[in-house]
């Protein structure tokens, strides 16, 4: 009897717990979001931005990140991690379905995780591989979850994940946010007709796909089969693709849209001063880096790297001018907004004389200046300003830098796929911790496009990925950051926050940086 009473009280507490906001929240209405662009398709197992925004709005995963940047449950009501960290047992919320009505249960979760690890090969890919055995799956999560050894269904709503030692520490992060949160796809819909799925995704999140009109909009409506019946508050979400940044802000000011998902730095002041507009800017979880190609001979000399990335850069001046004072000078792999940030900026004071001396020691000087070309993409207006500032600063230490501007696709191919850029500028994705973006320097990752190739660094990263003890993880993180700074592997100028803006009548908006998109709790006070 007592246990029944306790259970009833617990249920009552649960139903009132999240309702503090929900009580005030008005249900209904349409949330209109301005986006800078659309994705080529809506395949939910692919990564990339802005695809991430659509898949995370329409999808749901086992875990998610909250406003304190902690991993919390989404479809998983709870989870238990074995003492050695190698087994995670997830208990799912019952009663949820995918958008096509397929029950959201342990079997479907196993199917999804097996799809990522390659244990399950969907029918469409089997057919494709009959013609071309090397046909790519397009699955981008394998690099992050390839440490999963086996997934077992315990009962209808319990699923157990067995993992290798190296990698076990990153599973919850990858499922919750890192790089691109893994959302579950309907096995029934994904298995057979991938072309249809890529245009009409069938996921399990709070909003169900309605319509995607290329270059115009993407509409979604409340999914009545979402496991949490109190969410979402709005009936409908409409994404409008507005490539011109000024027009996104104008549309917000005019009340034509409710949210600008990504507000470029130069428009921050305009949005802030506009009546009826709220601007959200939180922890600086993004780094503004200028990575060089460490496999090119000229960058193999640590003295050159330190001259260019450490003492030759006046970070504060670039932050003040090109970044409109909205960032902070920074010199660590984990940005200051990450949970394990370690401020190493003081190790690299602006010291042109020291930079010149290091270049001279490496064999460069007035008769033989250090010359290189920075290739940037034209997607962000700040890039050219930052590149020009760097060029003039490098000139003061006797280094000559050319600037080349290319379109984003060319840049991405040359930087990520071909790895042939000498040096570039990059706005990194938001980081929860040092491991979030470690794939760019970890040799065993297919995405180690910083080309570091240092076994010692690999071992340090594996050290982080192999421990679930928070204290040891923090120590491992700091070792990684110190080592990278010491070797000048990661040239960074500043850290800055992701900026978003909404109309003042948009309530319950969660600022989560660029980590996660969660519009479940948003409601309209109209």
């Amino acid at each position, binding site marked *: 009897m007592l246990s029944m009473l306790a259970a009833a009280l617990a249920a009552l507490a649960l139903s009132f717990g999240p309702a503090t906001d929900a009580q005030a929240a008005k249900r209904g209405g349409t949330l209109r979001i301005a986006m800078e662009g659309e994705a080529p398709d809506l395949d939910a197992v692919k990564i990339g931005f802005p695809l991430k925004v659509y898949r995370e709005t329409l999808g749901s995963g086992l875990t998610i990140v909250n406003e304190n940047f902690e991993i919390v449950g989404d479809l998983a009501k709870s989870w238990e991690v074995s003492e050695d960290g190698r087994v995670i047992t997830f208990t799912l919320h019952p009663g949820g379905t995918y958008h096509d009505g397929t029950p959201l249960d342990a079997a479907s979760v196993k199917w999804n995780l097996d799809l990522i690890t390659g244990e399950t090969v969907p029918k469409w890919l089997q057919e494709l591989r009959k013609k071309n055995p090397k046909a790519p799956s397009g699955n981008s999560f394998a690099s992050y979850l390839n440490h999963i050894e086996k997934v077992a269904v315990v009962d209808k709503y319990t699923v157990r994940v067995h993992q290798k030692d190296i990698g076990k520490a990153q599973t919850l992060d990858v499922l919750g946010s890192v790089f691109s949160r893994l959302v579950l796809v309907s096995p029934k819909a994904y298995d057979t007709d991938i072309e249809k799925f890529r245009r009409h995704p069938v996921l399990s999140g709070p909003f169900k796909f309605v319509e995607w009109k290329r270059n115009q909009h993407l509409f979604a409506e409340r999914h009545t089969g979402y496991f949490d019946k109190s969410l979402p508050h709005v009936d409908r979400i409409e994404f*409008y693709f507005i490539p011109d940044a000024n027009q996104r802000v104008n549309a917000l000011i*005019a009340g034509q849209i409710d949210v600008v998902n990504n507000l470029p730095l130069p428009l921050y002041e305009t949005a802030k001063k506009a009546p009826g507009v709220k601007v959200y800017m939180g922890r600086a979880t993004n780094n503004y880096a200028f990575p060089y190609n460490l496999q090119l001979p000229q960058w193999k000399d640590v003295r050159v790297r330190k001259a260019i990335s450490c003492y030759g850069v006046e970070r504060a001046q670039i932050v003040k001018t090109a970044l409109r004072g909205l960032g902070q000078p920074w010199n660590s792999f984990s940005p200051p907004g990450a949970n394990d940030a370690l401020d190493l900026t003081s190790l690299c004071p602006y010291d042109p004389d020291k930079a010149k001396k290091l270049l001279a020691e490496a064999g460069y000087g007035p008769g033989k200046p250090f010359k290189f070309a920075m290739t940037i993409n034209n997607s962000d207006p700040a890039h050219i300003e930052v590149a020009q500032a760097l060029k003039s600063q490098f000139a003061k230490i006797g280094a000559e830098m050319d600037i080349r501007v290319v379109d984003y*696709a060319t840049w991405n191919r040359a930087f990520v796929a071909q790895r042939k850029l000498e040096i570039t500028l990059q706005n990194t994705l938001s980081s929860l911790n040092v491991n979030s973006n470690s794939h760019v320097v970890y040799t065993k990752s297919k995405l180690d496009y910083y080309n570091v190739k240092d076994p010692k660094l690999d071992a340090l990263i594996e050290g982080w990925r192999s421990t679930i003890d928070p204290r040891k993880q923090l120590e491992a993180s700091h070792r990684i950051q110190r080592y990278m700074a010491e070797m000048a592997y990661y040239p960074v100028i500043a850290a800055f926050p992701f900026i978003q803006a909404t109309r003042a009548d948009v309530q319950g908006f969660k600022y989560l940086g660029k980590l996660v998109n969660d519009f479940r709790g948003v409601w309209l006070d109209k």
Partner: protein
Amino acid sequence: MRAYVIRRLLLLIPTLLGITMVVFLAIQSIPGDPIEAYLGQFYEEELAASLRKQYGLDKPIYVQYVLWLGRLARGDWGKEVLSGLPVLDQIRERLPVSLELIFGAMIVALLVAIPAGITSAVRPYTASDYTATTGAMVGISVPEFFGGILLVLLFSLGLGILPVQGFKPWSQGAGDHLAHMVLPVLTLGLTRGALLTRMVRGCMLEVVGQDYVKTARAKGASEFLVISKHALKNAMIPVITVLGLQVGFLVGGSIVVETIFSVPGLGQYGINAISSRDYPAVMGFILVSSLTFVMANLMVDLAYAFLDPRIRYED
């Protein structure tokens, strides 16, 4: 007249073949590999080679051209590399939007240019002439992206009577559709109107001094009749030539305007295709843009025959 039209239509065939050849060779000469763009981070040499074979990209260029031309003739314009959607479907959907924008802009341009140019020419060096010529100079000098933003500031943010951006199809109501098209059409049309104003003024100035205009006046025809029937028709021949050429600029201008106002037309399609190195889409875009230009010039040639009897009687 019929022989003239037939001859002009026959001339289209080599012109179109030439266009396809130039488009094909231009795309081939762009640095970069579409397979690399497609594979991105998953690029592997072996995989890329098998995909090149699958898409016929391993064949010699002339073979690729002939194959492409054959497919083009059969209505197979290829699929977008990134999305896999048929290019022709996308063009069919977007072309009417761009044509509406271009046609609307031409009407705006003519509505501005003809009255302003005539007023300016018949009352030269007066306040109305100075107003028209100054307005035209400003219109020519302001680039579309800036003009568009000024119109948004005035009509959307200032007066709040027109939407900032976006597009609504006719099916969602004519009022809503037209409200969304006003600013893009004005942005594109006013610049062209400014240029044509100067053209109309210049041509009219030349014509109003001609003997036949003086004769018409001497015969007691009203000023309205003199200007509209005798002067304007003759002054319009060079104006129409320029108008035909302006179609090319309107296609180019529509890229900017469609991007600013998020109008899902061909210009926006083209710029997205170019920036993502989607070659089949780029080829489709350039081909249709070129065809639009060629067709506009054909219409201009046919209009000559209507306006100037000497042309049709030559045959």
